């Protein structure tokens, strides 16, 4: 059976679209929970890109990077959720505008 493969360009375009969606989410959302979710989308889109590229070169490096990115994103969100709890504890809100006071 012949293996059906997705062209690299298609995968990268999908990853780029997801990346842009995540970036837009980080920029326009004010709710910290959604910002963290958008951040996760950005990181996972890069993981997808690594998988695609790894498949192109038939190298395991892509999958290794995927695992590392998964771990890193989880760790990052874990700390992020800790801060989210602090934010909620202090302001009774997840709105990042509530915590924005530093200027200059």
């Amino acid at each position, binding site marked *: 059976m012949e293996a059906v493969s997705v062209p*690299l*360009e298609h995968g*990268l375009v999908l*990853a*780029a679209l997801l*990346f842009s969606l*995540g*970036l837009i989410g*980080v920029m326009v959302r004010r709710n*910290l929970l959604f*910002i*963290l979710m958008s*951040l996760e989308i*950005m*990181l996972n*889109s*890069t993981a997808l*890109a*690594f998988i*695609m*590229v*790894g498949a*192109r*070169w038939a*190298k395991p*490096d*892509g999958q*290794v*990077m995927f695992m*590392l*990115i998964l771990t*890193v994103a989880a*760790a*990052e969100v874990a*700390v*992020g959720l*800790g*801060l989210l709890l*602090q*934010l909620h504890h*202090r302001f009774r809100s997840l709105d*990042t505008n509530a*915590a*924005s*006071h*530093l200027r*200059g």
Partner: protein
Amino acid sequence: MSNTELVALLPLISFATVITIVLLAIPFWRNLKGICALSVVGLLISLATILWTTRIVPIQVTPLVLIDQYALLFMTLICLATVAVALLAYDYLKEREGQQEEFYLLLLLAALGAIVLVCSSHFASFLLGLELLGISLYALISFPIRGQATLEAALKYLILSGVASAFLLFGTALIFAALGTLSFNEMVQGFYVDVGSNRLYVMVGSALMLAGICFKLSLVPFHMWTPDVYEGAPAPVTAFVATVSKGAIFAILLRFFIWTDAYQYESILFGLGIIAVLSMLAGNLLALMQSSVKRILAYSSIAHLGYLLVAFIAGRLAGGAALAVEAASYFLVAYFITTLGAFGVVSIMSNGNRERDLDDIASYEGLFSRRPFLATAFTAMLLSLAGIPLTVGFVGKFYIFAAGVQGALASYGWSLLVALIIGSGIGLYYYLRIVFAMTKRPAATDSAATEWITIPVAGGWVMLTLTGTLLALGVYPTPLIELINSMVRSLPL
């Protein structure tokens, strides 16, 4: 893995062991002084293993890690800076409420991340080092949760740093698509064969990566987070962010460019040139308008990273790589000493169980009459930042200037030099503003400015050592220059 390779990895192994010991000790032994001492001893042991490793370098251990003189120099620098931060943090934390011992765990983890970063020769280890450093820093910045400035600083750093990491990773994926390798060594061959869509991948990928790196180095226009994070973070952590985090990332950027011969991409360098000019001018101009010492130092660090880029860009000339490494290394050593010292003073001033750090210029008024030693040390640090002779900062600036003059021979290089001169001129004003504030007699009604500050033992020794080194290397820089020269000669440039 052979024995030599294991010995080469000893600094990393001993560091990880120390972290495990500290992790296990904390639940049973809630003693800030003890844990601080344990961490410092562990750091010194790692430092000893670094010295021991010098006999067998350079050595490539697995495709991930390259231990050479360059990596060892920066490892030493990172270890010493972490010792200084650990001691300053002890005084900073000891009078605060709650259990503070975990601070040292996070500090050591962040330092391990920085150490992995400077010896990485593969994007996998690069990512691991970067994120170990970054994630520990999010927790460190928000560590003694006090005022809301700390929380805001940690949130800003977390979100923006996460976005920057995503940019960096996406860029890496595109470069991987074009070159088919993630190892710095193999990229050397890869960069020469760019045809068709590969060229697009390389250009877009490099642009995304540079955006991510410039964010981490807080270069204009990716600098927005810097003053807020510097202001909100506890002073010892600010010192760590400003020195270890940025120094390690700059070191790996320079290594990446030299090892992969990325200097041949003129358009990337042109972009970096614009970023350098903007950082030097914007950093210095914005610092003029600040009234907080921490914010002034934040903008000054933006400008200093701009100066570093001048040396970095000089590496594009034929044979310029050696000069770039030499100038950047010396400047980084100077920058480490000076910035640690400057934030050390802020840290000592802010000791005690207060809501926020004492960083308003007004609270430094009359420091010369209240605390002559602290004021003298701060003056020395500020003069060194400004690049006044007899300080280590002058020699560092001189190196950057020499690299800039070399670079000025090529196209657009002169504009970097002009920005460097203008930036240094403006810088003098706001550094001296702090010095003048310290000589001024404080208003009797201002409680913060008349408050008595006790100089703690550990912090006092750190400041004394830093000031001494600053003057010693400013007056007689030869030993350090020779050390750096021998490091540069050992590199395959």
